[in-house]
């Protein structure tokens, strides 16, 4: 019997010939990622337990991305502690404030290898599944253990597979696809399970789209959100400073808990409505609601392809009076490319405010929070109550094209009718 992609990843990591869903394994960690919300605490605990180093400084990545630039003296002090720990532990890959968001940097800087097992102190670590890697979020105590020993326990998950066919209509993107899946199947559809995104249409998706989809797999409860590594992956790896890779995916006769066939041809732009990521409908259901803020950024949709999609809508035009459009590139490299290609000029000419690469207002830390009664449409991944400031604000989630179209109109708009 063949193995799913998740089973292959965990079999290799635990040095076993094969494993099956439901089994419990002790796996070797290929890469550990910590960001500034939890890194200082984890490293402090590591010292408390009496561990003087990490399992492999070259396979530990630390990113300061959530509170950048430091919005308070407390945040600045946490960053100082992280820098001290990083130099004490000799950590090889450290991305300081302003370099970008962890889930953008790890793929972009060539840290992610297909088939590897990656843990991060962040739930959106599923993003690495876009490159065929088993990326997943863990808590701080688990991370202390992983850093100390290089190992961690895992339950081998069951897998739900989506087979995509057909072509997306113009102005419809893979963000709309993953929102649609969250809406149709629900936020606990893949609870403690792995998701495989396959089929002809998935094979045709570019890496930026795959990163968007795997990023939001966790919004359906998933432990992993996996694409097979293929030619697209190989080209991306080579372009981003690593060696290429052989194809890596599930075996032919793998066992699935469910397989869902999804045709993309008729999909309309989707929107998630407050305050649940799985409260999703076609854009018509929210169209016309006035907005105060539009947010283009995050690890879900802050890449050059996303900025370009927004720039195409906004080219030569200006956003509606009274609307704040915040643009937060996912990394410094994305920002640089946006400058070089003129995309940034288009966005700024259209009235956008530029914020430094990082998480920005995505998790409500700083840099563009919402007041009571305000309404925001964003390209990010969560719209829970109070996520971006006031608990009385409303957050809608959509694609870059939909967010740009809405900023232009001053109300939630259908990108097929604008631009």
């Amino acid at each position, binding site marked *: 019997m063949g193995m799913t992609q998740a089973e292959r990843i965990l079999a290799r990591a635990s040095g076993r010939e094969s494993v099956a869903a439901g089994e419990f394994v002790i796996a070797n960690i290929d890469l550990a990622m910590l960001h500034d919300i939890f890194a200082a605490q984890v490293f402090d605990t590591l010292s408390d337990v009496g561990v003087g180093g990490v399992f492999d400084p070259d396979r530990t990545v630390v990113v300061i991305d959530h509170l950048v630039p430091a919005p308070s003296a407390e945040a600045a002090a946490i960053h100082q502690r992280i820098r001290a720990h990083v130099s004490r532990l000799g950590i090889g890959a450290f991305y300081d404030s302003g370099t970008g968001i962890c889930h953008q940097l790890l793929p972009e800087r060539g840290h992610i290898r297909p088939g590897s097992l990656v843990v991060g102190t962040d739930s959106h670590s599923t993003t690495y599944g876009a490159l065929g890697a088993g990326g997943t979020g863990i808590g701080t105590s688990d991370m*202390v*253990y992983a850093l100390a020993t290089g190992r961690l*326990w895992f*339950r081998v998950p069951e897998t739900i597979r989506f087979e995509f066919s057909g072509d997306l209509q113009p102005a419809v993107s893979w963000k709309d696809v993953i929102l649609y899946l969250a809406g149709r199947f629900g936020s606990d559809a893949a609870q403690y399970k792995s998701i495989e995104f396959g089929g002809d249409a998935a094979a045709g998706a570019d890496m930026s789209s795959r990163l968007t989809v795997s990023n939001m797999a966790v919004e359906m409860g998933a432990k992993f959100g996996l694409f097979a590594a293929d030619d697209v992956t190989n080209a991306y790896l080579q372009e981003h400073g690593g060696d290429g890779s052989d194809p890596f995916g599930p075996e032919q006769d793998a066992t699935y808990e469910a397989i869902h066939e999804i045709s993309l041809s008729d999909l309309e732009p989707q929107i998630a409505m407050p305050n649940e990521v799985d409260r999703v409908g076609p854009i018509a259901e929210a169209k016309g609601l006035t907005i105060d803020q539009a947010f283009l950024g995050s690890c879900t949709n802050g890449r050059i392809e996303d900025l370009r999609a927004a720039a195409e809508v906004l080219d030569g035009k200006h956003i509606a009076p009274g609307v704040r459009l915040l643009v937060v590139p996912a990394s410094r490299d994305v920002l640089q490319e946006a400058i070089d290609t003129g995309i940034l000029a288009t966005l700024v000419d259209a009235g956008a405010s530029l914020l430094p690469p990082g998480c920005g207002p995505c998790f409500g830390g700083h840099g563009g929070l919402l007041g009571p009664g305000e309404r925001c449409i964003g390209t990010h991944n969560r719209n829970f109550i109070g996520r971006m400031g006031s608990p009385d604000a409303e957050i809608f989630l959509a694609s870059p094209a939909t967010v740009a179209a809405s900023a232009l109109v001053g109300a939630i708009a259908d990108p097929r009718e604008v631009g």
Partner: protein
Amino acid sequence: MTDQVMQGRVWKFDHDISTDVLSPGAYAVDPVEVRKLHVLESVNPSFASECQQGDVVVAGTNFGCGSSRETAPENLVAVGIACVVTESLSRIFMRNAVAVGLPVLVCEGIHDGFEDGQGIEIDLATGRVRNLTTGSEFQGDSLPEEMREILSAGGILAVLRAQRGA
């Protein structure tokens, strides 16, 4: 030590108990002595003060949903909860619970099978759950031995300390 078979008194909760309810954001960075006083307070204000060592939480589906907060299971341990038995739960809550030494058992039918204050008996190794008040029995998912070892050590950091002889 987490005994293989435990008995306790039930506190019953509904579906979708989130980490926001288990560890309200307003107290997230407070010390555990303060934090624990607010565990589940939005759904049962007297829970934290009346909970006793060895009590058990019985709940519905999707327990521990929401953002990853290790303080959520930590608060339950701090007020004396010995085990959580629930219809289904979020993966990250499960991981964090094991990490801090709180046994969690998934058991279908449990939500309708118990009322507040009833007695419960749980066998972690077999997954068998009994209502000591009504006598009805339920079969949950047993916990693998490796997970029970982490739990009886008192959590993953205790395992690490033991491995290092510290």
